[in-house]
Every structure is written in structure tokens, then in C-alpha cells.
């Protein structure tokens, strides 16, 4: 369906990524946000708290991030699209209830404007070191979706998509911004509401007597009933059967957890999104995401001027990981170069998928700034020379 115009600020704006993300959420139909202030993410909720009262949305500043995430899961079970916003330290606190959201199959969006870590780290400066936490941060086996925008415009566009994916697959979607994209101000064009496609909460058509909250009937996800519609359903963070009742058995664990995984892994091809450029005859391909993708393009130009055939892949959806793509590339190219603002996180996935078929070279950066493009260019040129 089309977006509700009340939440769509159509026009060209000069917005930072945080504000653009907030606008994206409102355009996507988000009407409940619970959050706790943390730099550099707070502008997202500042934007939302100013605009929500004019569109039937409620923002609440909770007592901490544990509460924020719990409230978002609760909010979403009313059918109201819900989101929270944080940065690394708060993201760590949210992990408990991100696990709950995954287990209860709750659509919601968790925005993490990444800063340097660990611990309090660099509150006002950039990092990309929450990539693995986004995937593995809560205990147990589960799958999530994670996206990473490279500009304020994408912060808007992809936030809408994050909501849509969370509705389709009933998972928490991690929206991995970073401090630079969050605090960078650029032109953001917001289209008219009737050009924005949003996925509404798909409510079950069954009667309360027929309905079971985790019965999938061959579909990837179960049907949804909102609290307050007379279904009198039960849901729990415990391992549960199709009725949503706790069942502590090996068989039920297998059935319950496997489905949480497979609804994403089986649909990975539909979920994965990336931009590919000049990879056809490339010797070296640079694999990037987020703000680093922009910096890498400068590095690629430098390397090309030095005669290297270099292509690029920009991952827009980080999780599920673009396994198929990387496996294919690894069979074709001499090296994959992976710059990221951490000491080597997504590069581990690239290495895993390359499986020794080509060189995989990280370009690590501890955080606080983007890479110097010349440093990335140097690795590209060297990779091409060594492989040759």
C-alpha cells in the first residue's frame, strides 16, 4: 500500500542522516518510538518527537535502552509500527530484547548510529564496529536483517525498506548507520506519499478459534494477530509450539529455532541487496558498506589511474550476507579488498565465502574518521601486483 501522507514530508530538504532516518520512519508508518538519548543517534528521536504529535504517533523517552527495546517489542504487538534508536553502548543493552523480538517474531526496526568503541569509546566520532554485534549480539541462534546506508538520502529511503522487510519477515531489522552518515547534512528528496510503497502489518484472516500464533501453514512466517482484537493468544520468549505455549523439548527447540533461521536463510536471495560496479573484468574488487563505500570510490579511481582493473561491490543489506555474490566473485578475481572502520569484521564473512579461492585483504581502521582513500588505493594496487 501507499504511505500515509500525514507522515511524509514531501520535498527537497537539507537534512542530516539522523533527521532523514527519522523522516523515513515516519513515512514508513512508524507511530511508536521508545528511545534513550545517546550520541550520535539522538537527533533521530529529536526529529520524531517534534513531528509525532502532529501525526498520531507517540514517542516516549524510556529510562534506559533495556526498557526502550522492550517497549518497542510490546508496541509492535499492537500492530503499531515501532522503532528504537541508539548507538553502540545502548545497542549492547538492547540485545536482550532484540533476542525476544526475534523469538516472538516481532516486526520492528532498531537504528544504531555507530560510533567508535569499545565501551564509551568515541561518542561523537565514527565507527563501523557493530556489524558483528548486530548479527550475533543476543544469545542463541537467530537471524536478523541489517542494512547500511551511505548517505542521508539512503538513510531516508532504506529506513522505509527496513520497516517493509521487518513486516514481511517478522524480524527485527538492524539499521546500521554510522556517525558520519548520521551527522552529515546533504540534500534529501522525499517523494510524494503516493510514490512510497509501504508494507502494512498483515493481520490474520482466521477466527480466534482457528488461530494459532505460530502456525505457518507452509509460509515463511506465521500470521499476525494484534493485542486487543479478541484472539487471546499467548506468546513467550521461551521455546514454544505453534500455539505459542512453552514447550521444553528437543523436538520443539529444533522446530522453533530452525524456522527462525530458515525464514531468512531460505529467502536470502530476495533480501540481499547490493550495488555492483565494473566487476566483470576486474582483477580486484572492493567490498564495502556504509560511509566507507563513498571513500572507497575515490580509492578505486586512484587505483584505476594506476592501471588496475578494479570493481566494487557495495553491500546495502549486510545481513543476511551476500554469500552467493562473494563466492562467485572469489572464483573470478585475484583479490577482494575489504575496507571497514573496524579491525576486521565483515571481512571475516568475505574470507569465509571466498574460501581460499582468492586473496582477501582487510583495510582496517580503528575508528574516529573515515579511511584515507590513498591507503585503500595502495592496498588495491598491491593486491593486483601480488596476485599477478
Amino acid at each position, binding site marked *: *500500500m501507499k504511505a*500515509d501522507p*500525514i507522515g511524509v514530508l514531501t520535498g527537497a530538504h537539507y537534512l542530516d542522516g539522523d533527521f532523514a532516518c527519522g523522516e523515513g520512519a515516519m513515512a514508513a*508508518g512508524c*507511530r*511508536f518510538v*521508545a528511545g534513550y538519548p545517546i550520541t550520535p543517534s539522538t537527533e533521530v528521536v529529536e526529529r520524531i518527537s517534534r513531528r509525532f*504529535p*502532529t*501525526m*498520531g*504517533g*507517540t514517542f*516516549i523517552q*524510556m*529510562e*534506559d535502552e*533495556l*526498557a*526502550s527495546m*522492550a*517497549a*518497542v*517489542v*510490546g*508496541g*509492535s*504487538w*499492537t*500492530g*503499531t*509500527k*515501532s522503532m528504537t534508536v541508539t548507538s553502540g553502548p545502548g545497542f549492547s543493552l538492547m540485545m*536482550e*530484547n532484540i*533476542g*525476544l523480538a526475534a523469538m516472538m517474531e516481532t516486526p520492528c526496526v532498531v537504528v544504531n548510529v555507530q560510533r567508535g568503541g569499545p565501551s564509551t569509546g568515541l561518542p561523537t566520532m565514527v565507527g563501523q564496529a557493530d556489524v558483528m554485534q548486530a548479527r550475533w549480539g543476543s544469545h542463541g541462534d537467530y537471524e536478523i536483517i541489517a542494512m547500511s546506508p551511505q548517505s542521508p538520502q539512503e538513510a531516508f529511503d532504506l529506513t522505509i525498506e527496513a520497516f517493509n522487510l521487518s513486516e514481511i519477515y517478522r524480524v527485527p531489522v538492524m539499521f546500521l548507520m554510522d556517525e558520519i552518515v548520521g551527522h552529515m547534512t546533504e540534500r534529501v528528496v522525499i517523494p510524494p506519499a503516493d510514490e512510497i510503497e*509501504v508494507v*502494512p*502489518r*498483515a*493481520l490474520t484472516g482466521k477466527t480466534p478459534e482457528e488461530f494459532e500464533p505460530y502456525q505457518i501453514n507452509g509460509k515463511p512466517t506465521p500470521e499476525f494477530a*494484534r*493485542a*486487543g*482484537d*479478541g*484472539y*487471546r*493468544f*499467548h*506468546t*513467550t*520468549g*521461551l521455546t514454544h509450539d505453534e500455539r505459542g*505455549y*512453552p514447550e521444553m523439548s528437543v523436538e520443539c527447540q529444533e522446530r522453533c529455532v530452525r524456522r527462525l533461521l530458515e525464514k531468512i536463510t531460505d529467502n536470502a536471495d530476495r533480501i540481499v541487496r547490493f550495488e555492483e560496479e565494473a566487476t566483470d573484468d576486474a582483477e580486484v574488487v572492493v567490498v564495502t558498506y556504509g560511509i566507507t563505500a563513498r571513500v572507497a570510490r575515490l580509492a578505486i579511481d586512484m587505483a584505476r589511474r594506476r592501471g588496475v582493473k578494479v570493481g566494487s561491490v557495495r553491500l546495502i543489506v549486510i545481513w543476511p550476507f551476500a554469500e552467493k555474490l562473494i563466492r562467485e566473485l572469489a572464483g573470478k578475481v585475484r583479490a577482494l579488498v575489504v575496507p571497514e572502520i573496524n579491525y576486521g569484521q565483515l571481512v571475516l564473512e568475505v574470507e569465509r565465502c571466498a574460501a581460499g579461492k582468492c586473496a582477501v585483504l582487510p583495510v582496517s581502521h580503528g575508528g574516529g574518521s573515515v579511511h584515507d582513500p590513498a591507503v585503500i588505493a595502495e592496498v588495491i594496487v598491491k593486491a593486483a601486483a601480488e596476485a599477478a
Partner: protein
Amino acid sequence: MSKDKVGTRTDFPPTPPEFLPEQQPDHPVTPYLRMERIPHVWCPGCGIGTVVKCFATALERSGADLDKVSVVSGIGCSGRAAGYLKLDGFHTTHGRAIPFATGLKLGRPELEVAVFSGDGDLSGIGGNHFIHAARRNMDLLVILINNFIYGMTGGQNAPTTPLTAKSSTMPFGNFEAPFNIPHLAASCGAPYVARWTCLHIRRLTWAMEEALDRKGFRLIEVIAPCPTLYSRLNKLGTGLNGMRFYHDNAEIRHGADTRELDIDFQKSITCGKFVDEERPTFLDQMNEHYGQVLGEKYVPMSPEGGWLHG
């Protein structure tokens, strides 16, 4: 609930019923329970089931639209209550029942949201949420079942364990000062605060019924025996001994100063309704404030929630 499911109960009482299963009369609160999940997990002599029964009775008497009542629990023995009530039920993470319930209430303001959890869950790991929900006067009915101990994990010390009482992690007796739960709630601004024991079935039911009729952060603390752990570790006998103790030592003092409600080990337990006043809830205040400041520009969330119609 189907009749044949009820039939599974026939093997539970030691003496067989005199009538065929389909003739067996239902317990009055069975329509409010998920009978297919009975027998429950609670120990013989535990007080939690009594509290659930009282709540079901209160719901019935209150005439509330049960389709619009959600019950939220955290983790622990009391946390299982949400799983037995035939309402929209949410069994959440440890300590987070109140913020989860806050999300439900704000996501669909017409809901009546009840939180049903234990002393460790709500005042220990969830203590921060408890005080802030009371401060905001979030529109939640909170039933805190206090058995003075972490039951499900094996009798560890709780923020409510009375001084000198033994627990599995204070084997030589507790030396930490416990919370006075009604005082904690009242001092954070809760407009309805009561305490009963699970011996006081009629008064507890009545308090729940009354609380369902109030708004804002309503706290009912229910003292319940834990014969398996608290009573055993402290040599207090069975659940029945616990009830006898309440009978002899519970003192009803409505309107008592909440500062005087500390519970000492095996001393008197002051029960009653301590606070019952009107105070605008979070949503009342939000609606009024935005209405004043923003005037016609203010669009409150619909009682049905801010959901998109598909």
C-alpha cells in the same frame, strides 16, 4: 476450551469423579484460564495460583471487555501467570514486563494492561522500570507477588528477603535491607497502592476489582508463601503453615503510612489499601499538554493504535 481437554483433569485428583468427565462442572474461573495448560508449574502450597484465581474473579466482576485486556509477565514463578490466563498474554524477558507493557499501552491506548510478576522480577532486575513507570503514572495494573525469594532459580536472595531470613545465597541469613514495596511505589507517585496476602482472597479480589476501575500505575503487592524454598530454607513448614502465619500476623491498616510497611522476618505484615487517589496518567498528561501547546495541530494516537490499515 473443549470438553475433551477438560477430561484430561480426571487423572489428576486422586479420587475419580463421581460423574463422567463431560458432566463434570467447570470451576467458575475456567473460562478465564487456558485449561489445556493445566496442570500448572507451581508447587503444592504455592500462593501464585490463588492470586491468578483472584484476578480471574476480579476480571469477571469488573465486567471488563476481556478482548481488550492484555497480561504481561516477566520471568520467574509468578512470571508464568500470563501463560495461564486466557487473555492476550505476553511472557517476556526477565525484569522487562513493565516496559513491554508500556509499549502495549502506548501502541494501543484502549487496552487495559496488567503486569503479573514476582518480587525479584519487578523490584530486582526490573526495579528501574518499576520506579519510572510509577513516576510517569503509566496506566498499568501491576500485581507483584512477593514470596521473598527467587523461587524458580532455587531460592536465592531477593531485594525483598527480610533481614536474617535465609536464602540459598544468604545461607547464614540475609543482612541486606529489603525494599518496602508499597512505600517504593507510593514514593514514586503510584496513585493506587495496596498489599494483601494470598490468604485474603476476598479482599484481594476486591482490591483487584477496584484497581481495574482506577487509572494510572496501580500496584497490588501480594504476599505469597513459597513452601519449596523460602519456607523450607527457613523451616517455616508447608503452605498451610504460611497461611496460618498470615492469619495470625496480618494486620489490616487501611491508609497506613507507607513508611511503616517494612516486613521483618516472621513479624506482622501490614495489609490494606494505602494509597487511592487520582492523578493524571502519562497519556492524560501527554494529551492535555500537546492539546494546549499544539492546539488543533495535535493528532493523538487513535485508541485502536497507530497502525496502518492493510
